[in-house]
């Protein structure tokens, strides 16, 4: 007999991991309009940073600081060399970022080899809450997801940088004329998105490991989250999209097989996009 606490907690866990995974894409694709197919590869780099850091004898918590920085730097290289030339050609970003994804994936194989690597879990025993055994790390991830979501939202909604960033993305010519450093705003926004992907990689590594394809699964799911939630809707879109794609699949899989649950959820996503192409929370 499955208890209610299990269903609630697993739904929450599945939603929160997708929030963490999709947040970087919600910025780069949702806000900036760059169809970032390298999002998965950036998550993978984050996972490998976690591996390198823990393998060097440091704590996984150190990886939470190092991974976003390293991956933001990868983002910097991407943005400065190629992406900044393509802001007015969004469809071309698709090819360019896929190219980056392939290069990154192969570089990882050259540096770390092809086999999967293990990243240890900082917690051992689960805690019992209302009769359900809950893994502590997943509880931490839920808190992390909530924290990241709020911090990112506040940053883009209320800070000086956030306002400039949104202004540049909406109309870079006008923003430039008003004295905003368009180049630097684009660059920093892209780096923040990439850094969040890196953090996601480090965050998922203790529960899925690190291998050259770790991020690929999250790439597809993240795009679904952003599109279903509504592009440009950082808070509500990411939350709603993650809930629909991750959370409902987890909840459904308690009453059906996992295969069936995933099929139903993706069918549901298609229905949402058909009826509301701008996403659950998108639009005017």
């Amino acid at each position, binding site marked *: 007999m499955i208890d209610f606490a299990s269903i609630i907690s697993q739904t929450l866990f599945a939603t929160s991991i997708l929030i963490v995974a999709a947040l970087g894409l919600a910025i780069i694709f949702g806000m900036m309009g760059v169809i970032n197919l390298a999002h998965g590869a950036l998550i993978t780099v984050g996972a490998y940073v976690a591996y390198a850091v823990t393998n060097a004898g440091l704590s996984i918590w150190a990886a939470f600081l190092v991974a976003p920085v390293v991956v933001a730097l990868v983002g910097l290289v991407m943005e400065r060399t190629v992406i900044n030339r393509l802001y007015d050609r969004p469809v071309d970003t698709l090819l360019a970022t896929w190219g980056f994804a392939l290069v990154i994936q192969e570089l990882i194989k050259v540096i770390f080899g*092809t086999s999967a690597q*293990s990243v240890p879990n900082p917690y051992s025993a689960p805690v019992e809450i209302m009769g359900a055994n809950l893994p*502590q790390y*997943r509880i931490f991830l839920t808190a992390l997801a909530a924290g990241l979501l709020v911090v990112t939202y506040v940053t883009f909604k209320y800070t000086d940088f956030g306002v400039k960033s949104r202004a540049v993305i909406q109309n870079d010519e006008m923003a430039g004329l008003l004295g905003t450093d368009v180049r630097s705003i684009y660059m920093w926004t892209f780096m923040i998105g990439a850094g969040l992907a890196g953090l996601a990689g480090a965050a998922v590594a203790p529960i899925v490991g690190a291998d050259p394809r770790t991020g690929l699964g999250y790439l597809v799911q993240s795009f679904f989250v952003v599109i279903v939630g509504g592009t440009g809707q950082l808070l509500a879109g990411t939350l709603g999209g993650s809930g629909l794609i991750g959370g409902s699949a987890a909840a459904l899989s*308690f009453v059906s*097989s996992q295969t069936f649950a995933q099929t139903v959820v993706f069918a549901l996503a298609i229905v949402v996009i058909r009826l509301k192409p701008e996403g659950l929370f998108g639009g005017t």
Partner: protein
Amino acid sequence: MTALTGCLGGGGGGSSGPVRVGVLSPLSGAWTVYGEAHRRGFELAMQEVNDNGGINGRDVEVIVEDTQTDPSTVTEKAQKVIRQDNVDVVAGTFSSASRNAAAPVVTQEDKVLLYPTFYEGQDQENFPGTCNDLLFMFGIVPSQQAAPWMDYMTSEHGSNFYMVGSDYVWPRFTNQRVKQSLEELGGNVVGEEYIPLGTSDFGSVLSRISNSDADIVFGTLTGTDTIAFAKQFYSRGLNEEFTYWTVDDEEFATQGKGPQAARGTYVSFDYFQTIDTDLNNQFVDKVKSQYGEDAGMDTVGAAMYNAGHMFANAANEVGSVNTDDIISGLEGQSFTGPQGEVTMREQDHQMVLPSYLVQVPDDWSDTNDFEGMFEIVDQKESVTPATANCDFPLGKGN
């Protein structure tokens, strides 16, 4: 006549010049890690064959092709090595799907395929292509891998099984056979689930396992899924409550799980790098000196190594590399491989192999330590596989 066609064919394939072997390995894509061991095992065998005078005095040339973990690429590459490179024999392919993609090609071109992977066993009814004179199976099947240990596992740990597998053919067929032996032993299947490949979140499955009265969780998850599952199994504390036995997690998968999540897990196969015999130690040393200290071996690599040697021995015995001669040479061929004595059964081309039950010890801590990764619990020197579910004689391309 043979020599003439060989010349017309562009230099290879005849009775002069090198013997050519086409190796189809997944060197990119999801199964890359197995592909590396795969290729190493075969190349190593061929080097040893060449050092000992080659095949009928001719050197062996290995042509490696990357199948990109994609069955349609397998078809293309199989055609390429046979038609363009004029190979005498084809070795490799990894998954059942990729083997099934190569089978029609070798049948059409009348070439032998040496298949190295642990798999579900030949079956005329469900996979007509697998009952084929041209296919030789060097990997272990469920009747050798799981059945011999059912007695031990049920008496040591209990007879309620919870089966978790990836959603494709190998897990389903393996579980079917395990269920048969479980029934004979009076055990029960208290849960059976198949998870789509590429799943990274196992929350609901783990909740169901946690609430079940299973004694043993029997795993046939593969790829990165088996790693994610083990890590989440551990973080839920389920390793304290249940015995976990997997028939997938060879050296590379266990490396990916890491000591924390892998400790205490049972695994069974025909080969483990930890097997402490002179032959295996030599084999492992050669792999390391050739491919680097961190290069590992697993059941698939060892099977490719055996396949290479047994093909060469067969061709030397019959004095030819013609397809029909290789078939008759390989049938009944015995060899002492890194895992011990092995024999290619004549009737269905299925290897008679040893079987090992191992467990990940508590003191394993370095993920690159492949020797310390497993501790042998028990071993059986020679396990005869269940007779393939085929019509006999096999015939080419049934």
